[in-house]
């Protein structure tokens, strides 16, 4: 009980728009170049809902959608295909929380019902379930800067103990002012990994998770990518994504927050 097969990946960040098109950049074969996020993302949401939802929901759903599309074309017509989900994010939707806290400074304290609906950490999970029709469970968590490692651990524990594929979705976005002065997230970043405890015919990598928590977290040589890794909790996944993109066998140590790491062996 320590093996996970990565079936597919979804990725969205500045200069990293989609897993396949980012692979060469992550493997160091092409330079990273700044680019805004594409406008049309999370197309599985109906157009009216896509207009109503926030950048956070769209970013989370975009990478989830890409990972599922990568695993099996036409999966949306198969209700049994979408697995349980783990959503990891340090702070959730701070755009919504900012609007609520701002409304509470006004004399009438008129909190918008729509904002309040969207204020819970599991809002992207709710939209994903509605969009896919998937009634399987979902868990939304936070572990501050260690949120990605905590999400991967939760997904692994879930996959092993309940013998099921799990879709891990990690995302964090810059906070609006004035919260941005107290929590610096440098750029939006979201990643999804479709994980299977059992061997699959098509796979991107095999992960062997290590139990210990001590050690130093891997960093990236590329200055811009390292700035992203250190500046967004979801981007703490980058050393793992790099190892998968390089299609090599090696050890990866991800920052798990508070001077701890999540270590694993990665093989193609």
């Amino acid at each position, binding site marked *: *009980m320590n093996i996970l097969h990565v079936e597919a990946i979804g990725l969205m960040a500045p200069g990293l728009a989609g897993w396949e098109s980012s692979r060469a950049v992550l493997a160091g074969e092409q330079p990273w170049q700044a680019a805004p996020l594409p406008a049309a993302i999370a197309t599985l949401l109906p157009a009216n809902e896509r207009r109503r939802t926030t950048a956070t929901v769209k970013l989370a759903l975009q990478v989830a959608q890409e990972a599922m599309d990568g695993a099996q074309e036409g999966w949306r017509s198969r209700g049994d295909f979408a697995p349980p989900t783990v959503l990891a994010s*340090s*702070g*959730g939707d701070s755009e919504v*929380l900012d609007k*609520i*806290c*701002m409304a*509470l*400074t006004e004399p009438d*304290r*008129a*909190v*918008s*019902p729509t904002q*309040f*609906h*969207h*204020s*819970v*950490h*599991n*809002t992207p*999970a*709710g*939209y994903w*379930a*509605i969009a*896919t*029709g*998937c*009634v*399987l*469970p*979902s*868990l*939304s*968590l*936070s*572990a*501050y800067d260690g*949120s990605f490692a*905590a999400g991967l*651990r*939760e997904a*692994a*524990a*879930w996959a*092993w*103990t*309940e013998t099921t594929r799990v879709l891990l979705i990690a995302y964090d976005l810059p906070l609006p*002012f*004035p*919260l941005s*002065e*107290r*929590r610096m997230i440098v750029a939006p970043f979201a990643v999804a990994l479709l994980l299977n405890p059992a061997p699959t015919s098509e796979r991107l990598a095999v992960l062997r998770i290590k*139990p210990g*928590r001590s050690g130093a977290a891997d960093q990236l040589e590329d200055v811009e990518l390292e700035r992203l890794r250190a500046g967004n909790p979801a981007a703490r996944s980058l050393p793992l994504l790099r190892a998968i993109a390089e299609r090599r066998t090696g050890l990866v140590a991800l920052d798990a927050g508070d001077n*701890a790491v999540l270590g694993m062996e990665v093989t193609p």
Partner: protein
Amino acid sequence: MAASLAALRNRESGLRPCDFEDADLPTWVGRVAGVEDEPLTGEFSVFDCRNNRLARLALEQDGFSTAVRQVRDRYGMERIGVFVGTSTSGIGATEQAYRNRDPITGSLPETFDYQHTHNLFSAADLTRRWLRLSGVALAVSTACSSSAKAFASAFRHISAGFCDAAVVGGVDSLCLTTLYGFNALGLASTQVCRPWDRERDGLSIGEAAGFALLEWVEPGDGCIHLLGYGESSDAYHMTAAHPEGAGAALAMEQALAHAGLQPEQVDYINLHGTATVLNDAAEDKAVLRVFGPGTPCSSTKGWTGHTLGAAGIVEALLVGLCLEQGFIPGTLNTRQRDPNLGAGVVLHNQEKTLRIAMSNSFGFGGTNCSLLFGRGEG
């Protein structure tokens, strides 16, 4: 726990007309008295906010931190995980900081510490540091099922070998966000909440923190056992429960399957029972579908109010009391059962030997969790 048991026995509600800060709302709340006078100090002062004060108070009740110290010596500080459910964490600190923004720059006051108060992880972080633990730690935040799902997460982490034991808990505290938010939705009652009542018209918001220690034990040890959990998503609507309670029923069925139990083996169900018109109706349909009308059930929200992300742990602990003491708390404040609802809702306290009981927690976003507990008798 002793005071909670006495309140259940004596049918004394903790709900009062809203007396939180300067919130001027025609609603009832369950405010924990004295939190205002219990600041976190010394090395923990960075965590100081209402939510973390409440968490710290709970960690020091009933010899809990002493019990954790004992298992810490046995397992090692790095082998005990921390799983804390919360919905709004310390957002109250951010609300205050926004009201005290610099009038010219708009910046938040220098004293505001986002990481250790508002961030969802802060109570889990405080819990870990307070108990001197260094293992895996995370905050589960799935609205009102948060601390029920914390049990499922802890179970999986122990089963997978990421830890040997777990501190499982939850905390949510009164704040303007939830008070004004639920009022904006028209879901907060102007009276005290009356679950399953024909005149129910909404919930009363409460606050709470609670913790439990989870570890593998042998049968017959006299502890309360987590027998199983079940989870599901409604995949229906962001805030409205599925009208047929399909997701709720699925969570209860999954819990029974996980525990290897039949519905007739469950002696009591602690309902989510928030007292909103639609939530109670949906849960009623779900209970009827899985259990029929014969299984005794009740909501304890009339005592505590809806403690949101803490509801799962609070009601797990109350279920533990019911199992130990052999009694069912009759739904408080409920005068006349809604004739359109059919679940076996109990209105008066009953003495009854209980072996197995269920606790339900459902939340915004269509997130459902049912837990099954039993008395650890051979």
